């Protein structure tokens, strides 16, 4: 009888080393910490390479706990990046960012016209969807998820002040969003507030918001124990 584990146990180390050999130099170069430590980016992406000299200022109560100054992922370092890459550097957007990848929305986000991305935080997603519902959206119902994301993207790269001044904007999904201003931010669809606005990317503005938009039903709390691990 075959025993896959035993086989793996005896052959894998060699396989692992073989795998390691061609990449070892590059791997080490990427993995070894740089003294001073800022911007030593394991993925080797453009965070520091293409940082523009223009300092980007973001506004909102959540900005204080997001990367700032010369920390990896600081707003200035994201200014030259494609929108989908920039999303990977904003820690509170892991759900939104995963949803962009799951739906292949990057092409729409990175289009030349420019877009405004109203990106709900992880806390907002957790308050909106049960964990089962969220997994279904991420893994199976990606068409539905794409529709939801397009409810969060507006054509044209609008600073938050312009967004608030517009009063009404239209999303990629074709829905209208009313926008009101105040406190240097914006309130969208009478429910979501910007909590850290005016991230700039190569062709987009990202405004982090604290509620999920769109028309999907709220399922958080449907399960008896929504936090069970």
């Amino acid at each position, binding site marked *: 009888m075959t025993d896959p584990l035993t086989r793996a146990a005896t052959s894998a*180390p060699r396989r692992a080393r073989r795998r390691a050999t061609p990449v070892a130099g590059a791997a080490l170069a990427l993995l070894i910490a740089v003294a001073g430590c800022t911007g030593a980016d*394991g993925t080797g992406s453009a965070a520091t390479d293409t940082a523009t000299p223009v300092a980007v200022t973001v506004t909102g109560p959540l900005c204080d706990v997001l*990367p700032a100054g010369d920390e990896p992922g600081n707003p200035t370092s994201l200014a030259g990046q494609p929108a989908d890459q920039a999303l990977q550097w904003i820690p509170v957007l892991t759900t939104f960012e995963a949803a962009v990848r799951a739906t292949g929305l990057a092409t729409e986000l990175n289009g030349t016209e420019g877009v405004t991305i109203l990106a709900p935080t992880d806390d907002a997603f957790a308050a909106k969807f049960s964990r089962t519902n969220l997994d279904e959206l991420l893994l199976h119902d990606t068409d539905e998820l794409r529709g939801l994301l397009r409810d969060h993207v507006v054509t044209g790269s609008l600073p938050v002040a312009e967004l608030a001044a517009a009063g009404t904007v239209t999303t990629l999904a074709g829905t209208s969003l009313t926008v009101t201003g105040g406190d240097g931010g914006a309130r969208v669809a009478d429910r979501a507030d910007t909590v850290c606005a005016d991230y700039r990317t190569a062709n987009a503005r990202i405004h982090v918001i604290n509620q999920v938009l769109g028309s999907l039903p709220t399922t958080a709390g449907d399960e008896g124990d929504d936090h069970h691990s």
Partner: protein
Amino acid sequence: MFSTLLAAVLAATAMPAQAFGQTATVAQMQAEPNQVQDVTVVQGDGYATLAWTHVDGATDYQIERTPIAEDGTATGAAVIVGVWRPNRQINNDKPTFADAGFAPGNRFQWRVRARLGTTAQPYSAPVSGATKAHWGDLNTPGQNLRTQWEDTLGAQYTSDVNEYAYTAAIDQLSERVRVVEIGRTINNRPINMFVIGYPTPPATPEAVAATNPLLVNCNVHGNEPGDREACFIMARQLAFTDDAATLDRLSKTTMLIVPTINGDGRAANSRGNSTGQDLNRDYSLIRQPETQAFVEMVRDYRPIASYDGHEYGNTNTGDLPMLSPRHQNVAQGIFDESQNMIEGHMYTQGAKDGWWACPYGCTGASVGLGEETILRNTLGLKNTVNSLLELRSSGGPTRPDEGNTANNRRRKTYSALWTFTQFFAYHSANASNITTARAEAIKFQSANTGRIVFRGSRPIPAHPAPHPGDTPPPLDAPGQDQILNQPPCAYKLTEAQYNGARTDGPAGRQTTVAQRLAAHGWKVIKVADGYLVPLSQPERGLVPLLLDGQAAEGLVDGERIAPTLTGTHNGPLTVSGVACLAGATVRGPIRVKPGATLIVNGSSINGPVDASGAAGFVLTDSTVHGPVNATGVRGPVVLVGNKTNGPVNVVNNTGDAPLVAGNTVNGPLSCTGNTNAPVNIEVANTVSGPKSSQCARL
């Protein structure tokens, strides 16, 4: 004159850090009423432990942190980063608080103040210090590796690509580490395991098992990655540390770290695997390739203790919710030792270092129950001392609510690193207790005594408040319909049940019952009209949970096979077909006809037992006055927990490795010619005579 100076000095201390070294001295000499005294700070990996002298009548304490420059001047705002409450630790007279969340290496000043009710009292004199940088010397090969998560200061989690490069680099640079691919995910991502020993890890799974290894499963839910990052850091520490105590520990055991069992879910940021299956509801059923690979690894490497890492979404909880295997079929000793690991070790060390370990839930939430599909319970049923670990929530009663920010990610990961490091220390200090509990559990389970509970938990007793364990999870006692008072001897499966195609599991990857029972490592006897799975084997408590029709989440409805003899039999006994003796007394020899099956639990036999040529032979928890012959058996041979007066012969058996464990043999133990050498799964036999050949080390 002096009082004017003092007033000026105290005013200065109210502002962050101006010549604080001198003011601290003065302030300590002239304490204000209820001012916290004797604040100390000790730096750990990613956290700083503050300790101070208790203030009589204090309701709680607030901990304030201010970033400072080399010269002590403040470089940012002072922030309350924590609240110490009496139920955070077991000894309230020596309060401690582990501050975390800061970027490693930065310099801070801390102050502590008591509150009486809600009334804040004067702050302590400040203490300051540089926190530890990321572990490892930047000029030492191996030590200077960093993960993507570390390099980005927590802004990004370590990607799969970065994981493989980091893992390969450790594998290549450290003789202490062997990276084993234990399987692949559905999307063909490798599931790697660090096997770490000093100076080198044992070469085979069997050799690793002989070192009583410990295991950390780091990331089953893809959207709970905090523990995984801790595992990467710990693997680097173990691979490249010069710490003598750690090397001593690694010379006596083997550390197994599975960083990413659910690589597909991690990449997708989903809880489940790529099919959406919650893998932590699949460790018994093993429908998925990820859980199957893990269970096969457990079968072959046999960890004696384990932690399973998670993150908890509840905002009203402690730092580190933990929970033992509570399912009532878990052997008492495994439950007790798991509780000792949590309440004895983690609560005690948490009080020293300032981390708040507590029972899962911490608030009485309806979590942490008896599902055997959860790894915590599955491993307990496999006789492994273990605990679930949850990393603290986004907010909470004693920490700021900072969502999924880098601050909070660092709190989670470095508290996981503390836990896993303490787990290793616990394992080293308690190895003999753990192995004793495990040996007793294996003998108890193999004896097939006592009722079977399909679902239901042992209670976690509440400690009188305030205490970390003052609010345990719900009782979760089994209902009457979840209890089977008379255990069967075995389950019989039909050919179709055993080898038939199944529809559960991912498309194209479904496995048969036969494959799953083999992955668990269970003994199965081929009989004329099907397959017998005896309960008298080391994972007895899990067997009915998969094979009984009454099971809550069963695999297949096997036929219960009742004992054939429970009373006294005088004279010779000849076995044809299947005989099952439970609590029986036989006064005379037992002869098993070729091709027949004999299963004996808890019986007394006055005479020789000869199972030559049997299809299967299982003898547990029994007394035999006379020789025992297991010769030429084609299927399983299981001899566990027996007392025999006379020679025991295990010879020329052709099935899987005979299990000879925990027996007391008054006579010789002879093992030759077996296709697979007999094993004792680290449960030693006591043999008065010589142990020969294949049994020499049993």
